[in-house]
């Protein structure tokens, strides 16, 4: 992959709203996470590209993306982008996910302090948020010990089943 290919690829990526995209072929590994990922967009490139092999779960236009780059590669390896560390960091965090569909509340009431914020310690049984569904208020309890490193949902936002609410560093 030469500089021009890379530029084309980045241009394309910036236009798409990926929430996650990853590909791997031999030594080549590419991870893209788009707008809905709290880290913002990030691209991790390493190794020698050949062609797109996986276009998983992700959102709108996996097909055009797959069709676009994929040059027969002879170019030297691209050094990993600076954000690569951030991506591998996340993998050691444990997610607290929503067990139900509903509306997410970070505090027990409009004028009350939040249950937990980034930097707080959590332990099993500790309430981390409320998910309200059809007038039933469900306090979600942590099932692990660790430190909150990310709070991903805005107060009052809708959440889906299994959506990640918090990232917890179990070693923190």
């Amino acid at each position: 992959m030469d500089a021009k290919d890379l530029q084309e690829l980045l241009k394309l990526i910036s236009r798409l709203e990926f929430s996650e995209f990853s590909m791997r072929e031999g030594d080549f590994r590419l991870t893209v996470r788009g707008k809905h990922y709290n880290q913002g967009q990030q691209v991790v490139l390493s190794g020698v590209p050949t062609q797109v092999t996986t276009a998983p779960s992700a959102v709108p236009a996996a097909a055009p993306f797959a069709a676009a780059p994929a040059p027969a590669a002879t170019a030297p390896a691209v050094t990993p982008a600076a954000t690569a560390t951030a991506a591998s960091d996340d993998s050691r965090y444990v997610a607290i996910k929503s067990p139900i569909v509903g509306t997410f509340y970070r505090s027990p009431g409009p004028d009350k302090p939040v249950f937990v914020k980034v930097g707080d310690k959590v332990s099993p049984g500790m309430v981390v948020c409320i998910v309200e569904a059809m007038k039933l208020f469900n306090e979600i309890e942590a099932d692990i010990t660790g430190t909150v490193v990310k709070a991903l949902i805005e107060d009052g936002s809708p959440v889906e089943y299994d959506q990640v609410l918090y990232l917890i560093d179990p070693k923190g």
Partner: protein
Amino acid sequence: MPINTLFVGKVLLAFEELPSTNAYAQELLATSKPIEGTVITAVQQPAGRGQHGSSWESEAGKNLTCSFILHPGFLPAAQHFALNKAVSLAVRDTVAHFCNDHVVKIKWPNDIYIGDAKTCGILIQNTLQRGALGTSIVGIGLNVNQASFSDWIPNPTSLLMANGLENDPMVVLAHLCQNLEARYLKLKAGKQTEMDQTYLQQLYRFQEISIFQRPNGEILAGKIIGVDPIGKLMVQFDEWTESFDLKEIKLVVSG
């Protein structure tokens, strides 16, 4: 009147005044291990709660304001709305005992209506642990002997206003304990299909043409045809069917 039950109401904590019976129940759960079926009542409840942030008005001594502590650990988180059905049916059964049965309905998801007016509100607070329900606080505000309400309350009524008779709130509570235990045990026994059907049979405006309003003000005519497993209201319009969250639709009550 004795409370004739196995566990609901066997521990009854009756207070002259509490800020909120639900809040007291929460405190109790945080500091001790109250047995399942514990009931907390308050003659006066100045900080009674409705939905997130809204309040519940009740004239001192006139009504029933109480909270039940349950441990529905047998219910997966995904089925938490089933608990709402069991509770709503129990309260409906109770109100129906004191009124003309067939005019007492559940307005989705859990208000109890006599005719077109609200006589009872329910506020359920669960804890979810490892994908299942942990503890549940079922708060109930049931208008018993109140004869007039503040103007800001949209369409209130009470047992007294509905049938002209005064009732002892503690007698109403005894009935409620029995009905709640009966419905709860059915839920525990896995009789959900039966309960789903009964809930629909007792649903206010079920299968009747009604007026609905979207949050953007749009007015639509449609009829309630069901409630989906997570509790959303299913409404059939002329050419389509739609499921709604509580905040996505309002049933316009002509009362």
